[in-house]
C-alpha cells in the first residue's frame, strides 16, 4: 500500500476533523493539519508503532502569497522503513503562535529558533526562543515577504519589460 494511503488512513481514524488535506507532491506525501492539533499529530506519528516517524529531518517557516498567513513545514523520516512525509500547518500572521515540538524532537530547538528569527513564529513552550542567526537588536522578521530584498523605491533597476 502506498505510504500516502497508510498515513491518511491512520490520521483520519485518529484525528477525523484535523486533517485539512492530503496529497502526493512529487515523491512526498504532504498533509495539512490544523495548527492546534499539530503537536498531537506529531506525537501520534512518532509514537505509533507502525509509522514511527522518529527523525525530524527539517523544520522551516513559509508565508502564504497573500501575506496574511504564516506556516510551518515539518519533514519527518522513519529511517528503518524509509518513510518520508511532510506536514504543514498555517495560521494567522497577526497571531503566529504554535506549540513547540522540542519535547518530541530535541533537534527542533535550533530549527524553531531559526524560524522565529526569520518569520517571527512564536513557539509556545520553547526553552530558549531567541534570535539565532541575526543580531539580537533586529526588530523585523526578515524572511517575510513585506521586506523585499532590494529597495522597491529604486527606479534605476525597474525592468518593466520582464514584469519583475
Amino acid at each position, binding site marked *: 500500500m502506498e505510504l500516502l494511503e497508510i498515513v491518511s488512513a491512520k490520521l483520519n481514524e485518529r484525528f477525523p476533523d484535523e486533517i485539512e488535506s492530503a496529497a502526493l507532491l512529487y515523491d512526498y506525501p504532504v498533509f495539512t493539519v490544523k495548527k492546534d492539533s499539530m503537536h498531537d499529530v506529531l506525537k501520534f506519528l512518532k509514537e505509533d508503532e507502525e509509522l514511527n516517524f522518529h*527523525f525530524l*529531518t527539517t523544520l522551516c517557516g513559509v508565508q502564504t502569497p497573500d501575506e496574511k498567513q504564516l506556516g510551518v513545514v515539518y*519533514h519527518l523520516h522513519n529511517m528503518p522503513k524509509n518513510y518520508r512525509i511532510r506536514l504543514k500547518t498555517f495560521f494567522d500572521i497577526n497571531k503566529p503562535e504554535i506549540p513547540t515540538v522540542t519535547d518530541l524532537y530535541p533537534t527542533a530547538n535550533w530549527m524553531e529558533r531559526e524560524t522565529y528569527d526569520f518569520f517571527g513564529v512564536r513557539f509556545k513552550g520553547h526553552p530558549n526562543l531567541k534570535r539565532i542567526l541575526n543580531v539580537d537588536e533586529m526588530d523585523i522578521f526578515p*524572511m517575510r515577504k513585506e521586506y523585499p530584498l532590494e529597495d522597491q523605491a529604486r527606479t534605476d533597476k525597474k525592468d518593466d519589460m520582464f514584469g519583475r
Partner: protein
Amino acid sequence: MSKKETVYSINQEVIEEKEYSTLNLGPTHPATHGIFQNVLKMDGEIIHEATPTIGYIHRAFEKLAERRPYAQITPITDRMNYCSSPINNMGWYMTVEKLIGAEIPKRAQYHRVIIMELARIADHIICNSVIGVDTGAMTGFLYIFQWREKIYEIFEEICGARLTTNIGRIGGFDKEWNKKTWDLLDIFLKDFPAGLKEFSNLLERNKIFMDRTVNCGPISAEKALGYGFTGPNLRAAGVDYDVRVMNPYSSYEDFTFTIPVGTQGDTYDRFMVRQHEMWQSLSIIEQAIKKMPEGLMHADLPDFYLPPKEEVYNNMEALIYHFKIVMGETDVPVGEVYHCVEGGNGELGFYCISDGGRTPYRLHFRRPCFIYYQAYSEMVKGIMLSDAILTMSSMNVIAGELDS
C-alpha cells in the same frame, strides 16, 4: 572574570563554594577552524557549561535565493559547505531537475558521481588532517593536504574554479571533460592510495593519537538521532544511514560500496568512519570510470541548457534560448519538492517551493552542520577544554554551512 556559585543539597545547606571562570572561545580563534563563539563556564580546565553563539557569517542565502533565477542560485550553494561545494552544486541541480521533471543521461550522472566522490574525499581530507593537527600531529596534515590540491586541480580543469566551483549545469555538464582532466584523474587514482595509506599509518593505530581521541566527545545513537545527526557523525554512533543507499540519486544504485559504521560515536570513530569512506569513494570513482556509459553529457532541456555558441550566432531559436537563459527569464512549473544528497557532513536537503515564476517562492536549505552543532554544548559538558576543540573539529562544523 569569575563569579561565585553556591551549591545546595537537600541535607546540608551549603556543601561547597565553587568559583567558575568564563572563557570566550572564539569568534576568531585559530583552534576553532571557523567563526564560532562559545562562551565557556570553566571549572579549572573542565567545561561546566558551553553557550554557542552562531551567525557571524550569516549571508541571508534563503532570502537571496528568492530573487535569483534558478541557475544563479548555484553560486550561493557553493558557499555553504565550501570544503565540498561540488556536492552542493549537484544537489541543487538535482532539486531543480526533479522540479521540472528532467531525465538526465546516465553518462552525465556517472560524471556527477565522480565529481561528488572527489569532493567527499577532499572534505574528509580536511576534516581528518585537522583532527590530527588538533592532537598535535602536524605531519599527517602536511603530507595528505597535497592530495586535496590534486583534487582541486581536477576541478579547475573541469570548470575553472577550485573552491567555489559552480561546476556543471542544470541538466548535466557544459561540455565533455578534456583529456587533461582524465589524465589528472588517472594520476590521482594511481597515487592517492599510497598517500592515504601513509596517512593511515601515521595516525590510525598511533598510541598517542588513540589516547587523545578514543572516548573523546562521545554521543550515543539515540541522542545523535534525537539531535538530527546525519552523515559520518551519525554513522560513527552506529546508525548505518546514508542517503546514497536509502534514496539513491544520480545512479548510486549502480555501484557497490559499503557504509562504514562506528560503535562509540567518539572522535576516534568519527575519524575512522571518514577514513574508510575515503577508500569507498575511491572505489566508487573507479567503478564509475570502468562502467562509464556512452551518450550525451546533458539532458534535452532547451529552456535551461545553454545552446552551443556556434548555433547562437547562426540560429534564431538558439539565440532566443541563450538570451532567455542568461537573463534568467525561464519560468519553472509550479511545484514543491524536497531533495537530499549525502553531503560531506550528512544529509544536505533542498526544500524548494515554486509558484511558477523565474525564481523560487521559498527555498530552504537543510544544512547538516546547523542541525548537529546544537548537540555540541551537551557533548562538551564535563570534558577538558582541549578535548572540546578536538570534538568540534571531528564533527567537522563548517562555518559557511552553519550560518548559511
